[in-house]
């Protein structure tokens, strides 16, 4: 494990950070940053609330602005264009054709602002000499001061802008890529203009939400907590398939966003979830259980019937194998749900015990036991996914022994926790529960370490999946919001 960590740190993924001059390099900040959390195996991350995400976004913009010295609103559009990869932006800004860069990002070059903008259709302004102008949306003639526009020069009245932006934000859910209202103009509306022109606070809030959402989704080092109703995001220093825990207590894999699924790898889990969701198993069931025609016209064909029976037997065996693993996976998942309810009853028991002359600290073992029970269930659940894809060899036999051992210990622990606790058997039960959970915990560690060792030493052979192990690395990347096509 250690050696792997070393190399990972060396290649700290830049994401939206510039790795070279990063101030809070993970190894140095441990303990300094109060928000920083640490999973058991040295994977630093922090949980950001919505406000902190916005702050993080503002900081990123500031950092770039110190160098490039262009308006912050333009910087945000540029950063979004580069999926918040500062280095890439800097590189293009200083090495490439700036004119083209601004055109691609759909902003007016801030350095050309005062000179005449070329290559852009000049808006045909209906301006009269009397200081009034006609809004091209509502066709109302208004004093010049009531019309406004972006750097592209297309001007509309404030009311129409407000309506236009509201429609885009509320109905079409567009945040980062609202273009100017003029036909054929692709210049983007910056956030300062949106906040100035939109009056309704509900629309403003939705806009801010859209902006932060796209910031998080673009950013490889950020991921929303997948738990429903949770508005936090987790920020890491480099992307890896590691467990992170949100402030809402949900523990998930940073790389794929699923519940933490050690020992199985992301790509296999994804394959498994898809397999369980599809109805492919239905057709397998049909193949395995429906009768195959064994007659050719009126002649019974011995050979053909044999082949057909063979194929059917094969698919029946495959189905049974799948069902075996699936049932166990589902059972642990179901039990895990029950264990979460167990917390409530355990809490009650703990209160009761404290009234029987036991101290708070003395009853904590019960909660700890449920914690460990849940962890074991979760690990066991995913061991069945791992085992399903595993091809048999000496190490896989060892793995299955570990699995069996952990499973029986976990069931025992579960059983103890369901027993009635009375003042007479209390001491005895406490001893038993403690012994058992310690045993469970150690068995869980042994099992996981064995699998991890296998990953390092390449012991595991898989079957039935073509997906490449690192295919997952590309999954969280969401395509840059596409521009509506022109045909």
């Amino acid at each position, binding site marked *: 494990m250690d050696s792997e960590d070393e190399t990972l740190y060396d290649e700290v993924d830049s994401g939206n950070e510039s790795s070279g001059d990063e101030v809070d390099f993970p190894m140095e900040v441990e303990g300094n940053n109060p928000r920083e959390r640490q999973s058991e195996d040295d994977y630093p991350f922090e949980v950001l609330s919505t406000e902190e995400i916005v702050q993080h976004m503002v900081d990123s913009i500031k950092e770039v602005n110190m160098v490039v010295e262009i308006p912050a609103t333009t910087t945000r559009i540029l950063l979004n264009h580069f999926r918040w990869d500062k280095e890439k932006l800097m590189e293009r800004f200083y090495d490439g054709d700036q004119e083209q860069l601004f055109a691609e990002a759909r902003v007016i070059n801030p350095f050309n602002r005062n000179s005449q903008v070329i290559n852009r259709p000049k808006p045909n302004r209906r301006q009269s000499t009397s200081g009034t102008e006609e809004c091209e*949306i509502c*066709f109302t003639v208004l004093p010049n001061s009531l019309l406004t526009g972006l750097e592209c020069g*297309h001007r*509309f009245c404030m*009311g129409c802008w407000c309506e*236009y932006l509201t429609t885009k934000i509320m*109905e079409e859910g567009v945040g980062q890529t609202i273009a100017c209202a003029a036909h054929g103009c692709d210049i983007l509306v910056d956030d300062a203009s949106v906040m100035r022109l939109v009056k309704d606070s509900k629309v403003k809030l939705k806009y801010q939400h859209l902006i932060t959402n796209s910031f998080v989704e673009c950013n490889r080092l950020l991921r929303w907590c997948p738990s429903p109703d949770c508005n936090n995001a987790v920020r890491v220093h480099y992307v890896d398939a590691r467990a992170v825990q949100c402030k809402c207590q949900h523990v998930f894999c940073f790389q794929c966003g699923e519940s933490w699924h050690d020992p199985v790898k992301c790509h296999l889990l994804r394959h498994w979830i898809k397999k369980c969701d599809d109805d492919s198993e239905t057709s397998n069931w049909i193949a395995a259980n429906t009768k195959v025609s064994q007659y050719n016209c009126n002649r019974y064909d011995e050979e053909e019937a044999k082949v057909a029976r063979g194929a059917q037997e094969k698919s029946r065996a495959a189905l049974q194998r799948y069902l075996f693993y699936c049932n166990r996976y589902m059972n642990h998942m179901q039990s895990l749900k029950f264990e979460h309810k167990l917390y409530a009853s355990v809490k009650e028991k703990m209160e009761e015990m404290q009234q029987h002359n036991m101290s708070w600290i003395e009853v904590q073992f019960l909660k700890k036991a449920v914690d460990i029970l849940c962890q074991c269930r979760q690990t066991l659940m995913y061991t069945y996914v791992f085992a399903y894809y595993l091809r048999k060899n000496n190490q896989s036999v060892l793995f299955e022994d570990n699995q069996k051992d952990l499973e029986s210990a976990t069931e025992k622990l579960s059983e103890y926790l369901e027993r009635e606790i009375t003042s007479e058997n209390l001491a005895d039960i406490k001893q038993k529960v403690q012994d058992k959970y310690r045993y469970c915990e150690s068995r869980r560690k042994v099992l996981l370490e064995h699998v991890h060792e296998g990953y390092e030493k390449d012991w595991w052979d898989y079957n039935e999946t073509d997906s490449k192990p690192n295919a997952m690395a590309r999954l969280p990347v969401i395509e840059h919001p596409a521009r*509506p096509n022109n045909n």
Partner: protein
Amino acid sequence: MANNIAAQRIQREFKEVIKSDEVAKCAIRVELVNDNYTELKGEIAGPPDTPYEGGNFVLEIKVPETYPFNPPKVRFITKIWHPNISSVTGAICLDILRDQWAAAMTLRTVLLSLQALMAAAEPDDPQDAVVAKQYKDDQEMFRLTAKHWTAKYAGGPGGNPDFEMKIRRLTDMGVEEDQARVALSSYNWDLERATEQLFS
């Protein structure tokens, strides 16, 4: 408020179209259907040098409350044989009526764009797959069919005795005329295959 803008806009646009040069050339027209400017009737002349030349095509234009921030809903009332227009419902596949709509566009630009679409079809982005296939596979067949539809439904010039005869053969068998025309057009005027499709 939005409602107000919509009505105000349409009133102004209405005047604009009536005054425009295109009206003078009899190319486009708009008429009110009701008093509150939510529904209009549009008319486009078939562009010259196309199978639609000489025809007059009627459109249904529905103005949403959120106009001009959302596009008007437009469809052909006059039946037309065109890859980007449904031969059954008259629904139109045109970017500016969907995601490319801009608030600064007007009824005039919409009608002119439709006229341009009639002159230059986009078979790779079809609304009517059958028409688009014919357009790509057999241009001449498409041209004749579109011309026939123009003559039949849009008051265009010239008939097509061969097509008329085939339609009559089907109507004699009890098939409705429009239905017979669609079936024959879809099967490149192959009477046998059209019959088969109608009676299967």
